[in-house]
């Protein structure tokens, strides 16, 4: 059967081109792969190959013709003994590319004129009568990993110095003894590589916990975290997920300079497909890490070196889990809402204590999970207090706080009695000198000052 050869699109953006030269003539026999013509676009001259075998029955567009639209018939290919003139001369329109989708699906609403109070999960994370015991964040994290590894053979820990050294920050202390070298694995110093291997093993059915000695080093691996771990479920149409936890200390420690002192919460928060957790207390560290290990999605779990040694009451339960995506109200208040997470909570809570002495009642919310973010808890609180201050250690431009501000402005604008203030780290690389470092970090006094500004005191 005779077929029309159409002007091809030779690049993603080509709409028309010049038929520069025919390399075949009427009557020639061609087979697939033979070069038939040269076509010029604004970018280059490309050769155009036959995709079928046949005889060139008729050339419809002469060489040298400019502005030939893509999909215009340029020649007719016939089989032996067939007559080209018998063909209809116009191309069937059915072969054209489909029209663009008529209307985009409505995005989930991010604006609302008169918002109702969002539904917020305020249920306690553990029974009120649970026995409590003081534990460090370090112990809580280790116990979380040990418990999950006992419960699931597919969970393993990989990272630099996690096994024989017992962890650079001793988070994995004792795990090698209990689980052996098969499941507690020392890696060479090669973040990009071992992050990729861990992601691959998650595709292969395991549930890796990857410890980065610090998240500063995870920048070497960020392609694997984002492009491989976070996007594969979507790219595979839901077939292939990546159950993995990337964890380690994040943010400033003390006097370690610019390359070792950075908060990545806002970076990872941006990525659909990732969950991002940043606990403050030991109980949350334990409950959230256990949930993160069980979660079928990739989770970035941001810890803090300064908090590792801090003690908190931890409920003594056989299986303490805290759901991802649920904020915690640490302290109820009526005059202002302070939202923070991770080590920022330390400044938020200290500020709230001092503000109480001055008669200002602050409600303090610990986000705990940055993505998915419990914005409902923030909105609910702002509807009550009408004022908001966010507190984080990271840089100001594109901060977690700036995102919260935009959500609150869109969803609870009419409830605000003052502009939202974002307390952040200063917009500088972290200096080494003790006095400058102190100046670069967020302080409790700055939070107090911000609260006074939004409450007009």
């Amino acid at each position, binding site marked *: 059967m005779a077929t029309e050869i*159409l*002007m*091809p*699109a*030779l*690049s*993603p953006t080509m709409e028309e081109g010049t038929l520069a030269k025919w390399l075949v003539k009427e009557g020639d026999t061609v087979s*697939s*792969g033979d070069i038939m013509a040269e076509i010029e676009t604004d970018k*280059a*001259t*490309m*050769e*155009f*190959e036959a*995709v079928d075998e046949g005889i060139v029955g008729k050339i419809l567009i002469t060489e040298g013709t400019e502005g030939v639209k*893509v999909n215009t018939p340029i020649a007719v290919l016939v089989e032996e003994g067939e007559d080209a003139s018998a063909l209809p001369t116009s191309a069937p329109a059915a*072969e*054209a*590319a*489909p029209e663009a*989708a008529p209307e985009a*699906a409505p995005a*989930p609403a991010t604006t609302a004129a008169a918002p109702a109070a969002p539904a917020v999960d305020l249920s306690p994370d553990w029974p009120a009568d649970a026995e409590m015991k003081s534990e460090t964040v370090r112990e809580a994290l280790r116990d979380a990993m040990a418990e999950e590894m006992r419960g699931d053979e597919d969970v393993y820990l990989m990272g630099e110095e996690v096994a024989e050294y017992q962890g650079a920050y001793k988070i994995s202390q004792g795990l090698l003894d209990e689980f052996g070298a098969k499941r507690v694995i020392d*890696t*060479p110093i*090669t973040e*990009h*590589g*071992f*992050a*990729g*291997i*861990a*992601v*691959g*093993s*998650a*595709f*292969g*059915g*395991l549930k890796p916990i990857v410890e980065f000695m610090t998240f500063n080093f995870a920048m070497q691996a960020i*392609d694997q975290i984002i*492009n*491989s771990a976070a996007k*594969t*479920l*979507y*790219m*595979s*149409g*839901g*077939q*292939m*997920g990546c159950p993995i936890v990337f964890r380690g200390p994040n943010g400033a420690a003390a006097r370690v300079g610019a390359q070792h002192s950075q908060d990545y919460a806002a970076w990872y928060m941006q990525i*659909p*497909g990732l*969950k991002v957790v940043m606990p403050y207390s030991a109980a949350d560290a334990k409950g959230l890490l256990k949930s993160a290990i069980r979660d*079928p*999605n990739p989770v970035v779990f941001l810890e803090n070196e300064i908090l590792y040694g801090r003690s908190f009451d931890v409920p003594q339960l056989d299986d303490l889990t805290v759901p991802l995506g649920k904020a915690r109200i640490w302290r109820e208040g009526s005059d202002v809402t302070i939202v923070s997470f991770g080590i920022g909570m330390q400044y938020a809570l200290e500020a709230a204590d001092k503000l109480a002495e001055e008669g200002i009642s602050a409600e303090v919310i610990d986000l705990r999970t940055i993505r998915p973010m419990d914005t409902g808890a923030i909105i609910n609180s702002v509807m009550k207090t009408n004022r908001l201050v966010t507190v984080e250690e990271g840089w100001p431009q594109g901060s977690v706080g700036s995102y919260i501000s935009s959500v609150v402005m869109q969803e609870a604008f009419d409830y605000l009695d003052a502009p939202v203030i974002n307390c952040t780290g200063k917009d500088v690389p972290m200096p080494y000198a003790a006095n400058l470092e102190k100046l670069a970090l967020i302080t409790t006094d700055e939070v107090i000052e911000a609260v006074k500004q939004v409450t007009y005191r």
Partner: protein
Amino acid sequence: MAARKITKKPNVSAEELKTYYREMLLIRRFEEKAGQLYGMGLIGGFCHLYIGQEAVVVGLEAAAREGDKRITSYRDHGHMLACGMDPGGVMAELTGREGGLSKGKGGSMHMFSKEKHFYGGHGIVGAQVPLGAGLAFADKYKENGGVTFTYFGDGAANQGQVYETFNMAAIWDLPVIFVIENNQYAMGTSQARSTSTKDIYHRGEAFGIPGEIVNGMDVLAVKAAGEKAVAHCRAGKGPYILEVKTYRYRGHSMSDPAKYRTREEVQKVREQSDPIEHVRDLLLTGKHATEDDLKAIDKEIKEVVNQAAEFSKESPEPSLDELWTDIYA
């Protein structure tokens, strides 16, 4: 590349040869059709064709057994067809339709199949190499005897993560075959201009990983090398490198005019080393098949590809609510 010259009669059955012929022809005809649909505007964006390299995946798939895994880069259509993924599903993914293997959300570079143990389809050059070693890590952890074929090109061989992976694969004895599909051009940069060593597999020696050069235009040579590599991995001896010398006839992607090489160079490979013509010669000279037999196969493949193309045109675009699904499990 060795010239397509039959020196001695290989010890291979007619059925086996016909299978290779059929599988390689399917890839070639499929890719030609994809090129055609691209030209018609039915396929958008990037589209990297595998024409010329067919013997690599077909030979290695012949050395694999059920449960073995494979992972590759964005030039992935051939790998998917060779491991048995549905041509209609692949083509419909290229056209971005609901019936595509990723429901139209992945595109040419991103398809996966748990059933066929195909783990993508990755668009960042070299990123699939540690991922492949990770699949092998999982096999070793689960002690299931599986082997992972991790494909990458001569271009990816200059990415640092490849050598990070070589190191860990070696110290952990991972059952992974690193298949370097050396088609001699990293996009438009020839190997001579980009790579310090003539034979890339030599770089494995620095990590204690054995390897060898394979004639990628000879499916039987590829299969034999694959069997050797598989035996090495299954015996618990760790990774193995196959540097398969091959050639892509088309540009790097559809919009590449390929001005960095001469038409004569391409033509010479096509005439002298074409992997499909090689098997065709073996079939005919060995009297394993007649011209008519091969014509019948050609017809059958053409039908399969036409059906795939039809499906890819008829399958509707994904429903608009698909935008918001599959982000979290």
